[in-house]
């Protein structure tokens, strides 16, 4: 036990009791975790695996500091996915060096307790102190569910408290009970848990049903709101129409809503650049700050609003409980392409970023289904492509309305997203046919939770985490790439009496020209070639790189007008080819690293890299040639 002995205190300066939250998916466990720990939480990975480890701190009324661990949701300890294995191993104390819970809090949705009670019974057998916290009591009460807490506690044989994660003070009872239990913690017994067979599971469920009947009075009726909404959203036809409309609105919003904020950020960086311009620094240093750092990093940070808006949609849909519906609606369609219905959620997350998308494929139990999803996830248009798309579309596609209400630029954006999706479906279809012909697919089984209004606080925490990750990237990977690009574009210095722009004498120009024979058929010029090289590390860097190149090339005032610069220098065919290239190109070192980690093999990483490169080259080639043939060259 973590009694806080002197020795332990020396070994680890803060010895706080560890409380593990365990519960079914959608039971409001994460909302409870957020309510308890607020912003005092840390998201990292468990050593050796890529499962997210969420730990936070809270101080109890008695002044105890607790470490709260939010474990991945599960229906049973009989783990089937890497996520569930973590839950099992932490609960069973198999990850002692990492987290070793002193107390397990089983979290149950008070309005949907049946499966939670069986899990609680299973947790009881583990031999560690267990308590049950009934979450969302407010909703349950409104729905006419009456729970006799004393009776429930007696029948289950564990302490039971109620909590309302979303209300101030809603976790007081839980914290008081934790305080009380920690006062007099029994020693953990040796875990006697082993995977139950069907008979034992049946027995446990009928025991849970008995407890439920004894302690809970409920009509068992569906939530009328959820039933009414589902009548539309799960309607075979209307549901699909709504889903598509939702995706369309999402992409229009990313384009339209972000604009004012983006202009503001842009102005801020331009102003910073002017400050450098009028400073008494030497010219070379001025160029480094203004062309290298400010225009480079600025041109990436400007996309923060779009990324936040995209994540806003994804988080809201997730919190609402709509994501499971989307998987339901898409199951058959994705099945036609050889994908599992559950792959919809990872693929949708990949619209934000392939990295969380690939990591969330852990919800897919079957290895083959999971691998297929991982291989195609990078084809979904991630937010890092947005800067590139925005730049090119802004420069080449006229900003006008078609059919009276749809922006043409938004429409092209939608088309690019659609190409990515079509590409992903086609590739997975081929994978299924080629590699796993005739192997029956994994069953699709998923709980459709009741709809719940998203909570501002959870949403804010989620958005904050994502925004920080993006800014951190801008401050590290992207920043260092920018410095490199500036160096390549500035050295060697032009000779005395040079007639060409300074950049023509630089390393960048040499490198770009070296690649020219390869990219000539695609219509790319050497500036694009130069931008693509650092763009291999992170897609959005290409925009910053173009910014730096054209700033150094075009001299003063050009940095904030990359759009104008490329509009003047590229043909429409070149622009379209670059867009096509970006739909498919494997330009993200972090994604490839995650694929390597998640599949545990270099082979699949190289397979991904190779097939995407081939697709990108082919798509750009075809686009360029067709566009030129049509007179856009």
């Amino acid at each position, binding site marked *: 036990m973590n009694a806080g002995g002197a020795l332990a205190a020396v070994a680890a300066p803060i010895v706080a009791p560890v409380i593990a939250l365990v519960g079914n998916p959608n039971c409001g466990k994460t909302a409870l975790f957020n309510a308890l720990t607020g912003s005092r939480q840390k998201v990292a990975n468990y050593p050796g695996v890529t499962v997210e480890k969420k730990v936070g701190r809270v101080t109890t009324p008695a002044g105890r500091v607790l470490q709260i661990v939010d474990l991945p949701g599960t229906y049973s300890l009989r783990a089937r996915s890497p996520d569930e294995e973590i839950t099992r191993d932490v609960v069973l104390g198999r990850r002692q060096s990492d987290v070793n819970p002193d107390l397990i809090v089983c979290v149950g949705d008070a309005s949907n307790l049946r499966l939670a009670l069986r899990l609680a019974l299973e947790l009881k057998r583990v031999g560690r102190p267990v308590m049950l916290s009934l979450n969302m009591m407010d909703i349950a009460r409104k729905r006419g569910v009456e729970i006799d807490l004393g009776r429930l506690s007696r029948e289950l044989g564990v302490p039971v408290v109620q909590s309302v994660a979303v209300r101030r003070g809603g976790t007081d009872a839980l914290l008081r009970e934790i305080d009380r239990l920690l006062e007099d913690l029994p020693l953990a017994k040796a875990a006697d848990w082993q995977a139950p067979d069907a008979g034992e599971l049946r027995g446990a469920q009928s025991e849970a049903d008995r407890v439920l009947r004894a302690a809970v009075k409920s009509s068992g009726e569906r939530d009328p709101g959820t039933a009414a909404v589902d009548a539309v959203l799960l309607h075979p036809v209307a549901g699909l129409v709504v889903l598509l409309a939702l995706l369309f609105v999402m992409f229009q919003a990313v384009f339209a809503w972000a604009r004012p904020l983006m202009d503001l950020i842009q102005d801020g960086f331009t102003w910073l650049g002017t400050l450098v311009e009028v400073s008494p620094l030497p010219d070379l240093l001025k160029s480094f700050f203004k062309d290298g750092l400010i225009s480079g990093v600025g041109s990436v940070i400007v996309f923060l609003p779009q990324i936040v808006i995209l994540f806003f949609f994804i988080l809201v849909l997730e919190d609402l409980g709509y994501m499971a519906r989307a998987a339901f609606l898409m199951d*058959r369609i994705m099945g036609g392409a050889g994908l599992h*219905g559950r792959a919809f959620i990872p693929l949708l997350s990949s619209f934000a970023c392939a990295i969380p998308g690939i990591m969330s494929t852990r919800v897919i139990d079957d290895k083959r289904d999971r691998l297929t999803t991982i291989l195609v996830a990078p084809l979904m248009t991630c937010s890092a492509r947005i800067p590139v798309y925005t730049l090119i579309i802004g420069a080449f596609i006229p900003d006008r309305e078609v059919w009276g209400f749809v922006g043409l630029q938004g429409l092209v954006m939608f088309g690019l997203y659609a190409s990515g999706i079509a590409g992903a479906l086609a590739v997975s279809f081929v994978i299924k046919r080629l590699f796993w012909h005739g192997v029956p697919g994994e069953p*699709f089984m998923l709980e459709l939770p009741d709809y719940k209004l998203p909570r501002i606080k959870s949403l804010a925490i989620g958005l904050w985490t994502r925004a920080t990750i993006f800014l951190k990237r801008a401050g590290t990977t992207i920043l260092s790439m920018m410095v490199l690009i500036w160096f390549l574009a500035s050295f060697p210095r032009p000779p005395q009496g040079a007639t060409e722009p300074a950049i023509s004498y630089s390393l960048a120009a040499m490198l770009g020209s070296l690649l020219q024979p390869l990219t000539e058929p695609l219509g790319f010029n050497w500036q694009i070639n130069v931008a693509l090289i650092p763009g291999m590390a992170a897609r959005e860097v290409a925009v910053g790189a173009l910014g730096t190149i054209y700033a150094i090339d075009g001299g003063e005032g050009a940095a904030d007008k990359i759009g104008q610069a490329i509009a003047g220098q590229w043909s429409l065919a070149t622009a379209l080819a670059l867009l096509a290239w970006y739909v498919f190109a494997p330009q993200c070192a972090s994604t490839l690293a995650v694929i390597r980690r998640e599949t545990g093999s270099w082979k699949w990483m190289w397979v991904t890299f190779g097939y995407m490169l081939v697709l990108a080259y082919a798509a750009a080639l075809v686009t360029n040639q067709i566009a030129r043939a049509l007179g856009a060259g």
Partner: protein
Amino acid sequence: MTSKSTIALGNAFVGFRGRIRELVVDMAGIGLPGPELERRLIELGFVEGADVELLHQGLFGGDPIAVRVAHTTIALRRREAMAILVTPALPA
């Protein structure tokens, strides 16, 4: 209730209400070994005696289906739902 009226949930129409009579998982064409499918179904609440209602179905081939089982709504494919044998509720 006689066993004559027993049907597989995988063959039921939207609006079907009934009670689970037994799980029979030894059928061919299932992606999982029978005992594993049985355990997964139980973990999602499909146990003998539980009330079920078929709420929704997908556009293509009426698949997958959304089933209310006791207090929970579960989405699954008809192929797996074939393992769940149900007896229709008597008309009220």
